[in-house]
């Protein structure tokens, strides 16, 4: 039961278009170049890969190459923001916010300057490059920093919107991006507001609320469709992990009585943990966590890696069934 207000693509379930969130970011950045003269783009020798090359070519005076120097990427970004620019620092998530974590903590977050951190190649779906390049802990690193906003777009279109919206956030922002092409499920008309979760699937009466973030939102929808006759579920796209839309999360968790979280990230410290923190305090319900369970990734094709690490549609379906069972056990007590 797609939520008509979400204005999703009509072909969500049948051969949806494929595009990478990093490309949505690249499109957004290029548009910001035109719209906002304060926007400056910094990169650490990955301009093509993180999709800021068109910006570099069109606005060479507002593009800063740092070379393979991610700590400097953060500190120079901090200085530019402190002066009055709006710098986007772009690299792979394992390096930024991974390698330069302390610089982000002190010179960007504690300093409270509006640096926008674009971390590309997040998750095991990076594929053949292997574990060294598959960021699985970056949400955890960023969401524990005061002042930091954390956004993980579900598709190319949402990545584009999130990039534009991040400029209006008065403070640092972390944008988590993926390398691989993934299903495009939202449209230009799909609402997007930082900090406001989107309900994508809602049959009314529900037994489980699936809260998903990033491109795996599509798998969550596929699971909901598969379970249609068996377990009524809602699917929520929690694109902003911080600040977390507690109202929506609590409302759906209490309505359903059980929750499944879905993310391509370590379960420890990730979006699911953020949801659990809120629900434990406000409406404790059984939660099943779909994500990576304390492991590093490895080389392989994106789809087989998602399957191997337990983030496929079948895993979400199984998690929903388990959550549903736990819900019934709990309600009998």
């Amino acid at each position, binding site marked *: 039961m797609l939520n008509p207000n979400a204005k999703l693509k009509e072909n969500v379930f049948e051969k949806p278009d494929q595009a990478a969130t990093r490309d949505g970011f690249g499109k957004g950045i290029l548009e910001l170049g035109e719209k906002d003269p304060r926007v400056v783009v910094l990169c650490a020798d990955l301009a093509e890969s993180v999709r800021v090359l068109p910006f570099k070519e069109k606005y060479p005076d507002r593009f800063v190459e740092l070379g393979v120097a991610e*700590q400097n990427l953060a*500190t120079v970004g901090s*200085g530019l923001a402190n002066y009055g620019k709006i710098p986007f620092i772009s690299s792979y998530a394992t390096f930024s916010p991974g390698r330069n974590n302390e610089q982000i903590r002190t010179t960007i977050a504690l300093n409270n300057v509006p640096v926008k951190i674009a971390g590309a190649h997040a998750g095991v779906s990076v594929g053949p490059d292997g574990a060294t390049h598959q960021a699985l802990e970056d949400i955890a690193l960023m969401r524990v920093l005061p002042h930091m906003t954390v956004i993980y777009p579900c598709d190319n279109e949402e990545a584009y919107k999130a990039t534009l919206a991040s400029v209006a956030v008065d403070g640092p922002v972390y944008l988590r991006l993926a390398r691989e092409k993934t299903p495009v499920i939202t449209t230009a008309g799909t609402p997007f507001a930082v900090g406001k979760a989107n309900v994508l699937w809602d049959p009314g009466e529900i037994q489980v609320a699936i809260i998903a973030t990033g491109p795996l939102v599509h798998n969550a929808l596929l699971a909901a469709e598969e379970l249609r006759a068996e377990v009524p579920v809602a699917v929520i796209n929690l694109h902003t992990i911080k600040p977390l839309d507690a109202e929506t999360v609590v409302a759906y968790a209490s309505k359903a009585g059980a929750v499944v979280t879905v993310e391509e990230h370590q379960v420890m410290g990730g979006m699911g943990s953020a949801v659990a923190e809120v629900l434990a305090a406000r409406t404790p319900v059984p939660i099943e966590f779909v994500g990576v369970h304390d492991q590093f990734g490895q080389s392989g094709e994106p789809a087989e890696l998602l399957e191997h690490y337990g983030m496929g549609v079948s895993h979400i379906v199984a998690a929903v069934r388990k959550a549903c069972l736990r819900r019934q056990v709990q309600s009998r007590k």
Partner: protein
Amino acid sequence: MLTEEKVTQLTETAASVRATVIEMLVAAGSGHTAGPLGMADIFTAFYFHILNHDPANPAWEERDRLILSNGHITPVRYAAMAHAGYFPVEECLTLRKFGTRLQGHPERERLPAIETTSGPLGSGLGQAAGYAYGARMDAKKFRVYCLMSDGEQQAGNTWESAMFAGDTKLSNLTAVIDRNNIQITGNTEDVMPLENLRAKYEAFNWHVLECDGHNIPAFVAMVDEAKAIVEKPTVIIAHTIPGKGVKEIEGDYRWHGKPPTADEAKRFLEQIRHA
């Protein structure tokens, strides 16, 4: 050129700044002594002669920016700012106390004109370079100064930033290295040698100057020279004596990271006031 009268005045002010530093540290009961005393002359030169600034209007857009990279010597900056009129000198005694604007390591949002948050070493030069880069994009006239310790020349981030500033020819940036030869666990050349520091910066396309960091006219002349160098950033390696002004602690690395006791402070203040 500084007049003799001005030099005498600055020297007296530096002594007052040193005295305030000692009073702050003894009241705080923790903090760093050697670095702040060693940099008192340079901070006095900045706040009472070099900087184009307005203590009554700390947010003035055209002010010169002073970025302190090695945040642990912040007591000397607080003291110099207080004496320059940014806030009452009495407030200095709140250093490191709960609720103070004068945090143990400086924080941008706590105190106007502190410019940036610092403490973890090696990340100030990049911030100063980013600041200078942004200012140059907008053809701003103000200068960006970055004060660093010598110990943080061991940090990789410092050299990433040096490479960047050299490559981008940030001539509106002047860095100053407090070459006092000590760090928290020993002498720099014992812990991890830094020399040849001059050759290293020259290799990174910087204009390098060296001076006695306690000779205010010489230091001021070098800052002026840096303004005339248009094709490179300039770094001034300022040779200082850690603990300068208190004979019994001068040059002793053990005073890097501890404050004086009340008795020691009494002796130290005596020396500073009657120098």
